[in-house]
């Protein structure tokens, strides 16, 4: 059976577009029609931009017909998390406060993809101000998990992951402050990469917590993550955290396999797992061994400080950004995010700096581990997507408490982290596995992720 165009990956579509077997207008129109038909049940998009998408697709088609093919993203439909500024397009960050905000510039990460020929599908649903992990949004409605719409997508890039899983976009731009790319990737059976801090510019994204924010690619394959990273990475003088590092061909090592690659499993990541997730992770370790990886159980004691350091840093920085609005527009926040921001106000400068001491020690702990292993692996999160509960504020706190210990470490260290599907639980919901690399080791991380992907961890391809 031919896979629906809406479920082909960018790397599969690119040769079809270049050879004019598929036109950007055909692909974009097909995706927009699906959004019109399916998204009322999923709510992946806050602001679709059908007219603009069609205009950009027509332009791309015209360019390609005249022999001007820009490369593998030319004519590919891309969804954008709604905390990235887009010139002339409403950017709400999932908030009431920014409900009517229309930026006069486009964020660097998004602009680079559009300059490469990407087509803007629209702005995707997010937890309010990208500051929560469920994507239950009191202003725009929750995004719903395509695997079971009674379950959450996770967040905060939940609209982006749900769109990928439902065939409502080929690629997506997400952001990750304490797991916001990886949590929804795990819950929706898709792929997400939180790169090294500063590798992708954060200029033009609405801040959640400056030192922990990471823009990153989201997709239905590792190859597509590598393609997106190739275009998104690079120095940006507008972002003080932007790194001066040479450009890489991130697809270069994808087919090299993982024979002899040393993968460390911290004992920390074996604790507190739901039983289904534990079973799937044990199976995954066996599979990685069968692929030739050298699996080693390791101990990183400093991981125990991650929850404190992550919450103290994120709530402190976020409350600083929101301080004036907390005073003047407090009623315009959802209860969960208002409580989180107020907690940041109530925490002390001493706590914040203790968190930064812990953070340096955590980096040292990982550096020590990376002397003995190439990659570190664990379940992305210890759970699968929970069903919606009546008290959504309490549920956000509960999900955050379970997930943050697993996801915060890579935000605190700035080390790259790739989340890939690990399998399905007994209810048919996806679980995720995370691979962590040392700073700027994205190429090797993608290599390992690709080897894992080729094992077909979901057992089938998402295509309907």
């Amino acid at each position, binding site marked *: 059976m031919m896979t629906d165009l809406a479920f082909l990956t960018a790397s599969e579509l690119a040769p079809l577009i270049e050879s004019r077997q598929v036109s950007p207008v055909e692909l974009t129109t097909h995706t927009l029609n699906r959004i019109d038909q399916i998204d009322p049940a999923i709510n992946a998009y806050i602001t679709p931009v059908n007219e603009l998408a069609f205009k950009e697709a027509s332009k791309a088609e015209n360019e390609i017909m005249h022999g001007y093919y820009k490369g593998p993203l030319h004519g590919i439909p891309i969804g954008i998390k709604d905390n990235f500024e887009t010139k002339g397009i409403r950017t709400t960050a999932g908030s009431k406060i920014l409900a009517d905000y229309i930026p006069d510039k486009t964020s660097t990460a998004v602009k680079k993809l559009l300059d490469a020929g990407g087509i803007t599908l629209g702005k995707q649903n997010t937890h309010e101000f990208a500051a929560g992990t469920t994507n239950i949004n009191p202003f725009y409605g929750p995004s719903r998990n395509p695997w079971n719409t009674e379950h959450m997508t996770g967040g905060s890039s939940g609209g982006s992951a749900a769109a990928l899983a439902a065939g409502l976009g080929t690629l997506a731009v997400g952001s990750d402050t304490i797991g916001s790319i990886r949590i929804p990737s795990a819950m929706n059976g898709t792929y997400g990469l939180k790169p090294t801090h500063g590798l992708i510019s954060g200029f033009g994204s609405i801040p959640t917590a*400056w*030192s922990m924010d990471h823009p990153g690619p989201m997709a239905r394959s590792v190859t597509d993550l590598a393609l997106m990273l190739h275009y998104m990475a690079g120095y940006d*003088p507008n972002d*003080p*955290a932007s790194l001066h590092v040479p450009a890489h061909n991130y697809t270069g090592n994808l087919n090299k396999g993982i024979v002899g690659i040393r993968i460390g499993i911290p004992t920390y990541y074996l604790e507190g797992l739901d039983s289904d997730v534990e079973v799937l992770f044990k199976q995954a370790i066996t599979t990685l061994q069968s692929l030739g990886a050298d699996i080693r159980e390791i101990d990183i*004691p*400093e991981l*125990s*400080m991650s*929850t*404190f350091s992550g*919450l*103290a840093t994120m*709530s402190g920085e976020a409350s600083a950004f929101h*301080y004036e609005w*907390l*005073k003047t527009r*407090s*009623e315009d926040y959802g*209860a*969960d995010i*208002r*409580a*989180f921001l*107020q*907690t940041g*106000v*109530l*925490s002390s400068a001493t*706590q914040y*700096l*203790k968190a*930064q*001491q*812990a*953070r*340096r*020690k955590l*980096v040292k702990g990982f550096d020590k581990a990376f002397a003995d292993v190439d990659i570190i692996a664990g379940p992305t999160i210890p759970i699968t997507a929970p069903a919606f509960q009546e008290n959504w*504020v*309490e549920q956000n*706190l509960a999900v955050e*408490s379970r997930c943050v210990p697993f996801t915060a470490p890579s935000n605190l260290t700035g080390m790259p982290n790739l989340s890939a599907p690990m399998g399905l639980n007994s209810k048919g919901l996806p679980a995720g596995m995370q691979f962590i690399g040392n700073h700027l080791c994205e190429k090797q991380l993608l290599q390992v992720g690709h080897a894992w992907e080729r094992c077909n961890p979901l057992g089938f391809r998402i295509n309907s």
Partner: protein
Amino acid sequence: MDNTNFIRQSLYLHDIPVYEDDMPYIQFLLHTVNQAQMSLNEFPDLNNENPITIVDKGLIYDD
């Protein structure tokens, strides 16, 4: 630290409105952070670490 009077008075001092319905959530979060902070006790040498601070390399010049 996570008592309601402390929360009310502290927010009041910051001129931030207090919502009584939010109180349990704030208490939960403060309790979570404070509990998690106890993990630092396992590292008595933590004060040997300089905190990570944002030193913007764009602001450092050698003229």
